[in-house]
């Protein structure tokens, strides 16, 4: 007998588990099929920001979609806590981008103005702060800090606990997590539905949701979907746990709820190479110590790198296959920020009538607009 489910979610990272727990919450018998520990997982190496301020240049809808998720986040965190007993430590006090010179501040302010001036861009409240304003929030800033961009909507979580909580809630809702199930083949069944193969193993499901991060690139064409995603490496550092000294997250610097100060995170085209290197780590640590000189005395205890799941334009892809109805693709590069929207908005669409117009902007047809010559 082949195991059968209503829905199979391929990939058990932040995206797959958020969608999976949402589907299980809609009463669907849901399985998450996940590769083994060799998998490249952004979900374990990210920077944990729930972030709005700089997003949406080139696609206004991405900003408003991000904001929808940010609004859903408090309820989402509360339901995770209630169902899993895990506090993901959501804090949304507003966040900053610090500038280390007047020129950088002007550049960043101009970028924010350009972002807001795009046709169809839902107005975003942000503030440009000068040094003296900033010193009231961060008395310890270094002499080079000229000012900052502040946006009230920004925040952060403990993303490892988020990842764990999503798995626990998925299981509590009756979901089946199938580890070491590296999907090799997806085929359509004659009477509808899909058969999913991994070596000798096989399951069947009425619907299939691709949420395999970088793995989507290989799986998507099997069911008429289009996932041009590539790895984009990011490196980060974390210090020993120190007493609270950063009240707000900064886009490249945040203090976790447990006290470690994270510094990040680079963007490097490095294929599947997950190495770390002193050059980039050193540059990031140096920038952090110029922002807060006292950080220079704190010990770094770990460094790592992880691979982002990146599309050409940096925006998510949500797609329902026309060739193979019932097959969906969900992938993005801000899976922490969008977790609430994935669980509370995208999953109900998949369980219901399919993706609505609200997600139309994220269809991969946008990659096939003929280039103007």
């Amino acid at each position, binding site marked *: 007998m082949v195991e059968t489910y209503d829905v199979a979610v391929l990939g058990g990272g932040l995206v797959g588990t958020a969608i999976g727990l949402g589907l299980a919450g809609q009463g669907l018998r849901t399985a998450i099929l996940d590769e083994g520990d060799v998998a490249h997982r952004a979900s374990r190496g990210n920077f944990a920001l729930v972030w709005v301020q700089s997003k949406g240049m080139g696609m206004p809808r991405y900003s408003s979609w991000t904001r929808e998720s940010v609004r859903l986040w408090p309820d989402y965190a509360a339901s995770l806590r209630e169902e899993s007993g895990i506090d993901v430590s959501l804090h949304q006090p507003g966040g900053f981008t610090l500038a280390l010179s007047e020129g950088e501040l002007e550049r960043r302010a101009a970028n924010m103005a350009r972002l807001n001036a795009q046709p169809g861009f839902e107005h975003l409240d942000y503030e440009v702060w000068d040094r003296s304003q900033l010193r009231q929030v961060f008395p*310890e800033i270094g002499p080079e800090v000229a000012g900052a961009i502040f946006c009230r909507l920004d925040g952060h979580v403990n993303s490892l606990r988020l990842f764990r909580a999503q798995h626990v809630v998925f299981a509590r809702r009756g979901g089946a997590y199938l580890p070491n199930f590296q999907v090799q083949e997806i085929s359509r069944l004659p009477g509808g539905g899909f058969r999913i193969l991994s070596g000798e193993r096989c399951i069947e499901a009425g619907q299939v949701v691709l949420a395999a991060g970088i793995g989507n690139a290989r799986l998507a064409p099997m069911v008429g979907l289009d996932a041009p995603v590539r790895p984009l490496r990011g490196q980060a550092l974390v210090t020993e746990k*120190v007493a609270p*000294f950063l009240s707000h997250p900064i886009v490249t610097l945040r203090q976790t709820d447990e006290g470690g100060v994270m510094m990040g995170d680079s963007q490097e085209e490095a294929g599947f190479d997950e190495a770390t290197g002193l050059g980039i780590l050193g540059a990031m640590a140096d920038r952090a110590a110029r922002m807060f000189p*006292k950080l220079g005395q704190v010990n770094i205890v770990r460094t790592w790198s992880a691979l982002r799941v990146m599309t050409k334009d940096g925006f998510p892809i949500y797609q329902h296959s026309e060739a193979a109805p019932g097959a969906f693709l969900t992938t993005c590069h801000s899976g922490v920020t969008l977790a609430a929207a994935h669980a509370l908005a995208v999953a109900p669409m998949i369980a219901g009538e399919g993706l609505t117009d609200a997600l139309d902007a994220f269809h991969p047809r946008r990659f096939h607009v003929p280039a103007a010559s």
Partner: protein
Amino acid sequence: MFQRLPDADDAARRTGIRFTLDGLPAQGFAGDTVAAALLALGRDTCRQTAISGSPRGPYCMMGVCFDCLVVIDGVGNRQGCLVRLREGMVVETQAGKREVGR
């Protein structure tokens, strides 16, 4: 309870080192690490952990476990087992998280 070996305990043959421990005068011997001196004084906890605050003391004595953290001369989170005791040193319990700049 740790005890010095009889040889090592022969105070007459070793140079005493005076330091302060949490503000009180204390004594060890030349050649002691901070962690060894604390253990010999019967102080088998030297810090509280950063999250739960549970007590910890020197364990591996060779720099790998980080359970011997103390504040030395005003610098937090130093590994007591890797620092030699010096005359006049100011050693304090590491109470939970280190403070930035201390």
